[in-house]
């Protein structure tokens, strides 16, 4: 009989794990409790944090390094169909904060500035709270990459908002309107007029508005004749919605059902992977009968994804304060695993009684912040017998999409 694998978490790590286990003939079920980091991120696909990449390039005095993709990774990306991850180069994205940053790949709705040289990029003005075309244009034009490539960003008056409510609705809602082909054609006309008005341009940069069910930028660009795409926003981008749509399509294609539920506890694994055993029991909130599987993959995300919780011990204390010594971070699921960061078992005791969380919580230059680094400690991707971990749940790994895919693929393969 095929091995049964239960994947907890439906972020990109869980998806990669499900896909890779299913490819190896396992029966896969995915259970998730809702939105994680992947659904909140902006659509940049990184392998290592991009500032590290830039720093390395600066030190080596070379172009940005971009390693070849592993074949499994390439195939996973192709089947997901959401991303553009070039084989051996990276991409350049404009962020709404006014930076031009490298990435290994991108959600296809995002504008890639790499191919542009000595040209103008139009930024339509729009009366939306987070969209200041003038300030953005000025900041982007000043970026070293733009100066080196001779790129000029130009704010233009082009009525890209059609209805009055579009000044206020969320990015995701505006993006969803462009899922409608008629509306997309309307936008196309406006952009064409903007191009004509400006006497041509090399590309058009818009806000994160180009599709909620799928990226609509490429269709637009093909008809317009110049690249069009979104600027990257750090959180709350419709890229998350697009990921969820692509994920559900892929899960359906590989025949892995996804169900909703919050896992409370995981336990009882006896045999190691590949060995016969009683399997692992998974207790779901509100359900009396535990689920059973041969192996479980924890892909519940990190602190940002909700897989890890911060619970300082004095939280529940009365007037008597607790003694020092309890670790303030815990997996949101009861499981026989240990928590830690890149350096080992976690040292911080709590914010209010001890080691300076104010100094270590946030990243500083090289060092990742404690809130990012915390996770389940593993041997590779193995956390305990019958329990594997992937993605942001793992301690001390880069918090990036491709790293989550890498560990997800590996966990799926090893389970």
């Amino acid at each position, binding site marked *: 009989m095929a091995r049964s694998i239960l994947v907890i978490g439906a972020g990109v790590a869980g998806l990669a794990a499900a896909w890779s286990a299913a490819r190896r003939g396992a029966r896969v079920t995915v259970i998730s409790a809702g939105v994680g*980091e992947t659904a*909140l*991120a*902006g659509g940049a696909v990184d392998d290592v*944090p991009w*500032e590290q990449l*830039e*720093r*390395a390039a*600066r*030190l*080596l005095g070379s172009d940005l*390094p971009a*390693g070849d993709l592993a074949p499994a990774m390439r195939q996973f990306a192709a089947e997901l169909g959401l991303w553009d991850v070039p084989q051996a180069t990276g991409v350049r994205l404009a*962020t709404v*904060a*006014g*930076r031009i940053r490298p990435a290994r790949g991108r959600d296809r709705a995002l504008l890639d500035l790499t191919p542009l040289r000595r040209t103008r990029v139009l930024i339509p*003005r729009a*009366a939306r*709270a*987070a969209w200041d075309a*003038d*300030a953005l244009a*000025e*900041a982007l*034009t*000043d*970026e*070293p990459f733009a100066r080196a490539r001779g790129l000029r960003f130009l704010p233009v008056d082009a009525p890209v908002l059609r209805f009055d409510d579009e000044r206020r609705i969320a990015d995701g809602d505006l993006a969803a309107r462009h899922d409608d082909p008629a509306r997309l054609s309307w936008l196309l006309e406006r952009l064409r007029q903007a191009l004509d008005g400006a006497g041509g341009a090399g590309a058009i940069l818009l806000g994160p508005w180009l599709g909620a069910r799928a990226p609509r930028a490429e269709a637009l660009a093909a008809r317009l004749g110049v690249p069009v795409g979104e600027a*990257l*926003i*750090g*959180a709350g981008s419709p890229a998350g919605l697009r990921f969820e749509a692509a994920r559900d399509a892929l899960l359906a294609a590989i025949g892995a059902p996804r169900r909703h539920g919050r896992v409370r506890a995981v336990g009882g694994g006896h045999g190691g992977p590949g060995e016969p055993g009683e399997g692992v029991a998974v207790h779901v909130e509100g359900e009396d009968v535990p689920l059973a599987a041969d192996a479980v993959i924890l892909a519940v995300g*990190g*602190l*940002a994804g*909700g897989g890890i*919780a*911060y619970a*300082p011990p*004095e*939280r529940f204390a009365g*007037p008597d*304060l607790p003694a020092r010594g309890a670790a303030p971070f815990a997996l949101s699921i009861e499981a026989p695993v240990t928590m830690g960061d890149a350096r080992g078992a976690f040292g911080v005791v*709590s*914010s*209010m009684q*001890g080691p300076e*969380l*104010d*100094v270590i*919580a*946030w*990243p*500083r*230059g*090289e060092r990742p912040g404690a809130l*990012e680094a915390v996770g389940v400690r593993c041997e590779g991707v193995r956390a305990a017998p019958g329990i594997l971990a992937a993605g942001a749940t793992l301690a001390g790994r880069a*918090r990036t999409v491709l790293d989550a895919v890498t560990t997800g693929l590996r966990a799926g393969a090893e389970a």
Partner: protein
Amino acid sequence: MTILPSSAARPARRADTDVDVVVIGGGVNGVGVARDASQRGLKVALFERNDLAFGASGNSSGMIHGGLRYLTSDPHVTENSCRDSGHIQAIAPHLLFRIPFLVPFENARHGRILYTLADGFFEAYDKYQPLKRGKPHARLSPDELRRLEPGLHGDLVGGFSFDEWGIDGARLCIANAVDAIERGARVYVGHTVERIERREDTGEVVAVRYRDRVTGEGGRLRTSTVVNATGAWSPITASLAGLPASSSRVRPGKGVHVVFDRRLTNYAIMSKTIDGRQIFVEPWENMSVVGTTDDDFYGDLDQVRATSEEVRYLIQGIARVFPQIHEARAIGTFAGVRPTLYAYGPTEDALSREHQVIDHAAHGAPGLYSMIGGKLASFRLFAQEMTDVLARRFDLGARCVTHTTALPGGDRAVDALALSRRLEIDAVAARRLVYRHGSRALRIEERVRERPREAATVCPCEPVIEAEVRYVLRHELARSVADVARRTRLGLGACGGMRCAARCGQIVAQELSLPPRDGMRQAMEFLSRQAMTRAVALGPEQARQEALAIASVRSELGAPADDGMTAAACEDGDRRSTRPAREPEERAWRDRSS
């Protein structure tokens, strides 16, 4: 009031000076004197090392107290405090908001006796309430207390309500500084005074040497008179004139506050800490503030921050009467250092005073004065006392009129709702704008009328519109993202600047003609500094939010406090010197990528 005899020499205004008076320090006392002295016709220059309201004045509990504390020892002080609180209301009505207090009494030992005593105490305070348009106290049963404040906890014998006023200390400083400028004063922010020069023979003040902390440029300004209004920095400033620090001694008492994302209570509630100190949780503007501590502080006054222990101490204390505080979402902390009088003065009169003017003629430095102590609540009176001394020194007949002349924006009321309709902005945004600027909100409206795009929201939490950001950069001496935050509360709300710092940085760069990258660097500095003040108050609810914030900033801007931007800027200059130090990292990167 001077406790030391004023020096005999009374220089009338002299030709060999550039200004009559140099004021050092842009806290409420410094700007108060600058305003009063300018109003009375003196030529004033004010130097502020950081930003206006950077010190205690921008980090206080934001209350205009009526001097309740002095009621038993010296009711005269209470009367003066209440009267002056009334004056502040008259000259800046837009900046004040009522904070009704509840004082619950626990059913502990002597609970009942204390309760009865307190009743008499508050009754005595009621006498002075009319001076500041305050309401008389009310005696409340435990049931009534719980009806007013359902979250109250514990075995109570009863309690009281009484009335105080809240104020935004930073706005108060800005209003005074702007008024001084409009009356001819020169105000230099980001300029530190490095030396107070004196004549070798007579010891008289002749000039100050200062430096612009951004450009590094120095200068000298000739003057016969210097007012040291540097609060907790006061002893350091005295030493710039070659005087011993003890000539201008303060007890530096650090106080911290924890900020919550919304108004958690209807009333401010008093509670006690584990060691019996009085603390409170107060609804303040659109958030709640818990405060405060009082500990001796001898660290770097430019880098005062709350610690985890202090936060814990406060929260634990509030939880005794208001346990829900544990569930609430802390969004930050702020800290300041009180310039408390070192010891009660030698005279009867000084015994119950909160502030004091020191004439350093007694230390052989005629022309140098220090203002020690004080409160937001009594800043105007203190400034008046100081300026009276100056007026005598310069033989001026002009009397103080700071209590009858409106501060900028305080001259007339503005209908916020009508403004919101005219500007087509959110009513809350308009209300906040009017709170901060009073009638000067109309000048911001003027900007929007000329450039309708500036009605766009920059900071959605507070909320702040673009025109206001530009206005404070042009007319209120803001020079950075942090300065804009101090003036508008941009980025100090629930999202910690995550959604507005970068945009604000772009606007700062535009307005001040800086390279856009400077604006971005400022935004990053602001974000990481805010994060540090927030981390000490992190609770379970906030930790996830914080992790999201880190990821989001990383994605859009780069790692917070990353040196990459600086490195890129000076890359060509000192590539060789940075290289060896970076080698381990280079190796680490290679390992990872292989």
